[in-house]
């Protein structure tokens, strides 16, 4: 795992996935490019500490996530609202996701609304949706990446889905209680 040609193959394999994840976390392309590069450099330096029993992709996304969070903290754009105490156990109001026809979300124009809604989510919800919906990670891998319990992953993903749909409806001019 220490030779550079092998590492370069890993970079080529993961560079776009890592870049996309970071880009949707920080929202700025140039910054995401820098952070993607920083992620792989950090990964290379940390390779001796990587445990083979941990999936490489999970480990890599941990590094990418930390780089993105550091960047957001530097910009002071991070939302520090904790979702781990209390709200995870609260009931989720399904009215927040009142009927939303599939054809509306499939519409390209509506995709822009979804991107906007995604950007407005608290970081904790945004990152978990990205890992699930875009990276197709299992709950176990997400738990390992975010260093949280699988039960928390389950409830947080549900909450994030409800939230992003609520934001979407808001921007689409719809109201749950109409």
């Amino acid at each position: 795992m220490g030779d550079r040609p092998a590492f370069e193959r890993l970079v080529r394999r993961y560079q776009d996935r890592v870049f996309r994840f970071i880009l949707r976390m920080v929202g700025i392309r140039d910054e995401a490019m820098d952070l993607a590069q920083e992620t792989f450099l950090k990964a290379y330096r940390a390779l001796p500490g990587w445990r083979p029993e941990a999936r490489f992709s999970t480990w890599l996304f941990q590094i990418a996530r930390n780089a993105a969070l550091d960047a957001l903290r530097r910009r002071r754009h991070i939302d520090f609202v904790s979702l781990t105490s209390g709200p995870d156990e609260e009931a989720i109001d399904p009215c927040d996701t009142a009927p939303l026809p599939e054809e509306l979300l499939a519409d390209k124009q509506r995709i822009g609304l979804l991107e906007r809604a995604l950007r407005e989510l608290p970081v904790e919800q945004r990152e978990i949706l990205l890992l699930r919906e875009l990276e197709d990670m299992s709950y176990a891998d997400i738990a390992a990446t975010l260093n949280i319990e699988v039960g928390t992953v389950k409830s947080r993903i549900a909450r994030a889905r409800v939230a992003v749909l609520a934001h979407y409806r808001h921007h689409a001019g719809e109201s749950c209680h109409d």
Partner: protein
Amino acid sequence: MTDPVRPHLPDMIRLSGYLDGELDGATQREMETHLAACPPCAERLAELRALTAAFDALPQDTLGFDLAGMIAGRLAAAPRPSPERPAPRWWGLLPASLGAAAALTLGTGIGSVLIGGGAAMPRMAAMSVFDTLPPGGLCLGPDSCYSKGARK
């Protein structure tokens, strides 16, 4: 799941887990039965599926260049990572200015001993930089400065 006959609020956590195939087998089957008889829950599930479909339709941004080549250049100029690094010497943790101040103080002390004799020499407070815990909030190890269990 709730009795399908009686009106109820859809359990979004279960619906979300069902969508992802992350429920245990028995619960997954229970949900299937429930969804067949509960239009509100089926409707919510359709929304979650639509959301997943919308994520699939998001633009697939790419870097647009070979990051590996760029990183190879930077790595070529850097030393290879080593699993075993020598432990940093403790004075490596001290800032250069503090080290310089300590050296100056030490020199002054030795000079005063040579010139004026040791009997009248005042106690030099600055020598406290050699205490176990250095001043200025510097930590010689994580146990020295940080309490355990502080996370979360």
